[in-house]
Structure formats: C-alpha cells, structure tokens
C-alpha cells in the first residue's frame, strides 16, 4: 500500500494522453532537435568529417541523449512545480497513505515515458537520414538510464523551485549548457584541457560517451557508473524533499 506509485503514474499518463491529442505537443517536442539536425547535421555537417565517418553519424546519438534529457527533465520539473504551487494537486499525494519514494517513483516513471516518447521521434528521424544510425542494446540501456536520471533531477527541481519562473532559471543554467557542452555537437577531445574537468562533472557527458559506444569498454563502464551514482543521488535527494514537504 505504501509503495503504491501507480496512481501517481496513471495521473500523469492521463494528462499526457490529453496533451498528445493536441497537435502542438508533438510538434514542439520534435521542433528543437530537428532544427539542430538540419542546422548542424545537414548545414554544417556536410563539410565535416569526424573520426573517419560523417558528422550525422556522430550527431544523431547525441541528439537522442539530449532530447531524452530535455523531455524527461522539463516535463517532470514543470508539471510537478505547477501542481505543487499553482494547482495544489500535490496536496492529495502528501495526504494519501503512501511513502515519499512511491510519489517519487510514480513521477519519475511518468517522466521517463515522456522522455522516451520524444526520443523515439528522433530515433525515427535518425533512421530516415543517410547516417548509418543503428540501435544497439547498449544504446537502449543508456537511453533508459539517461531518462531515469533526468526525471529524478526533474523531481528535485520541481520540489525546490519556489516559482514557475525558477524552473526556467534552473533549466537555463544547467540543462541548456549541458545540451551544448556535453559532447552532443562536438567530440570532447577537441575541448581545451582546462574546461574538461567541468565538462566531466556534467551527467549528460557520460550519457553521450556510453550511448556512442559500439561495445562496452573501460571508459564506458566508468561513465555508466557515474550515471548510476547520479541517478541514485537524485532519487534519494528527491524523496527526501518530498518527505520534508510542509506548507
């Protein structure tokens, strides 16, 4: 009973289904990555060769990682924040006889579904481009883990943000730079040495490292471990924030 996360998840899914029926949602979920794909992949990328293959081959897995991050994170953070501060529906979660971690799991799984859905759209686009893009089991596992990680971070900001504008600020300071400097658009070996330590703190960097690997190696394992540790840390912190919720 206390671990009953399903109603939290179901509620988000019912809301998500309604949003899907509105055309605007699909369009906006796809818009940004497709703009990047056209601008960087087709525009800039034609004249660039990376690691002996075309730039598109490099770019598409990065766009999938970025999209999964953006969507898992943003939907959770903003819907939780609105529901907590504005619609007050969060009150019925707190007043229900379920544990903070059940609320956490329900919200995170819902965020993962939204992240995976948007990622799937990019994967389809990837198959349509002449990039030789393919989906391996390692790719799928990394994608799932990345969605999980950023949905957890979404709960953390959704609980911390004191207003809806705050959520946008967090997004501009952490998510936006991560999208650009974590190896989505260019390989990290081209980055000046003094910036590298900062870049290797960012979780998306590690998602980008693993998601591009054909097979697991030592570097991949380390990055994978970082993703898991970050996920657990955000999960524990988010559950704690829910537990300490008070009006």
């Amino acid at each position, binding site marked *: *009973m*206390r671990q*009953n996360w*399903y*109603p*939290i998840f*179901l*509620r988000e899914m*019912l*809301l998500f289904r*309604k949003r899907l029926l509105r055309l605007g949602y699909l369009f906006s979920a796809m818009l940004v990555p497709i703009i990047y794909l056209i601008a960087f992949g087709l525009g800039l990328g034609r004249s660039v060769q990376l690691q002996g293959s075309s730039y598109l081959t490099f770019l598409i897995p990065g766009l999938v990682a970025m999209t999964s991050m953006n969507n898992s994170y943003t939907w959770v953070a903003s819907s939780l924040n609105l529901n907590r501060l504005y*619609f*007050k*529906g969060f*009150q*019925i*979660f*707190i*007043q*229900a*006889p*379920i*544990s903070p971690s059940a609320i956490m799991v329900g919200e995170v799984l819902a965020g993962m579904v939204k992240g995976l859905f948007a990622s799937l759209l990019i994967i389809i686009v990837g198959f349509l481009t002449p990039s030789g893009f393919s989906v391996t089991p390692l790719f799928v596992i990394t994608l799932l883990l990345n969605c999980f990680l950023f949905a957890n971070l979404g709960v953390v900001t959704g609980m911390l943000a004191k207003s809806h504008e705050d959520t946008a600020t967090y997004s501009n300071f952490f998510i936006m730079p991560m999208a650009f400097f974590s190896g989505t658009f260019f390989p990290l070996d081209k980055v000046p040495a003094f910036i590298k330590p900062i870049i290797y703190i960012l979780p998306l960097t590690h998602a980008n490292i693993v998601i591009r690997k054909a097979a697991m190696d030592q570097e991949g394992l380390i990055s994978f471990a970082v993703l898991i540790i970050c996920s657990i840390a955000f999960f524990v912190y988010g559950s704690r924030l829910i537990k300490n919720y*008070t*009006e």
Partner: protein
Amino acid sequence: MIKISGLTKYYGGITAVNDLSFEIKEGEVFGLLGPNGAGKTTTIKMLTTLSRPDAGSYMIDGFDVVKDPYEIKSRIGVMPQENNLDRELTAYENLLIYGMLHGVKDMKKKITDTLKTIDLWERRDSVVSGLSGGMQRRLLLARAFLPEPSILFLDEPTVGLDPQMRRHIWDIIRKTRVEGRTVVITTHYIEEAEALCDRVGILSKGSLIALDTPDNLKAAVGRYVVEFLDGDGRLIQRICKNYNNARKVTKIVRERGKGVIRRRSNLEDVFVKLTGERIEREGLSETEKGIL
C-alpha cells in the same frame, strides 16, 4: 479520538497558530470558527499532515502524526478550501486517482454511487474545468468521502455557494454524522456552525479563546441581545447575561427616545463578542456599562 496538545506554527516571524490544545470526540461534528486570518486553515493543514507543526503534538486513535503519519493519513479525508481537483481530468478520473491513492476497494461501484449522490453521474466524462463552481465543490466534497475515512476535514466547505447548494452540502454532512463519522469543519459562516456543530472552538489570532457547545457558549456570554442605533446611525448590539439585564438596557435606550429591539442571542453574537470585533463601547453612560 483526536488529541491535540500545544500545537504551534510560525510563518516568518508571525505566530499563525499558538499553543493549541483540545480534543475532538469520536462521532462529533466539531467546528473551528474564527475571523479571516485567525489560523483556521493553518490548523487544518497541520491536522491533515500538509504542514509540519513547529511545536506540540497531534494524535488520532493513539497514533502520533510524526511517528505514524500513514496511520493518520489512512484515517482522514480532506476537502480543502482551495479547489485542488485536476482541472484537465474528468470528474470520473479525479475520483479514480484519489480512490487509488487511498486503496479504495470495489472502486467502480463506489465512484458510480458517489457521482450519482452528488448529481454528477451525467457529467462523469466532463473535464473539471468545464464544470460549474458548485459542481466542482460538490466533487471536491465527494472526493473526500470516497475512501470512507473515519474523520473528515472540511475547510470552508460552502464558501461561495448559493443558499440551496449550501443546504444540500449541509444535508450531506448531517448524513455522514449519522453514519458515525467524525467531522471537523472550519467556517466563518456562523449559521453554518450553529446548524451543524456539536461543539465549536473559536480561534482568534492563532489562539483558542473558547470551546464549548453552541448553547453553552450562548449561556456563558449572554442569552439576550439588545440592538439600537446610536447618534451616528451605527448599530449597537449589547449582549446581556440574562433577561433582567436585557430589560434594563432596553428601558434606558427607550427613555432616550430611540427604537430598540430585544432578541435572543445567536452564535454570531457570541463570536463577535469573543473575537472583540464590532463591539462598541461608546454611546453608553457609566451606569449602562455597569449594567452590562
């Protein structure tokens, strides 16, 4: 049974609720009265686990809110003052999610019965934002009932409703009392407290200033009220302990050639007297004050 002792809550530097102690018996309808800002909603939020008390303790059936929050949560149903229904979901979906959160068994039948009771069965598939204000309030109330909690907390249940709807909701509350449920209501409609409550506690500036049955409160504060207009046209209401006092005051006012009404006191008179609002001392001589 609900046992509250020393419950205190600060917001910033302000004491919203100060050292509240009282008990609510099983099966009674208990009213928390007070002017706006007296701390009613803060108290309800603490009692329904939304807000953490800064001091004091609170127990239901021997379970402590801090040590056994789940035991408390599985016993209570809450109708908040602010509408927190999911506006984009339908009436049915709202009840479904709430019911699942509270582990309601035989859900389909219960939701159907509930929606029929509140006359919303026909509108079960309408999204909440498409329902009228009165319908939304009914749904909010019905949602609190759905898990059949042993204690119901209703924060201003009839605020903003027309008189018919208000009476309809009063009937629902009376019915639940017959079923043996404990009900805790906050309201600033005095007639609501008088119509429903077995006992009322009066809050003022975060403190409990009186707690008794409506009848005992009237007996303690005064059974009669003398009303007249003063020189500036303001309405003066004098509460008098007994009939003799009321007669004396009436006589004095009448001798000044003013119109005067003498009536039995109601809970509103008690409330106004105790919370110290609208009570005017001017316009009376020292002897009159002596009589009062």
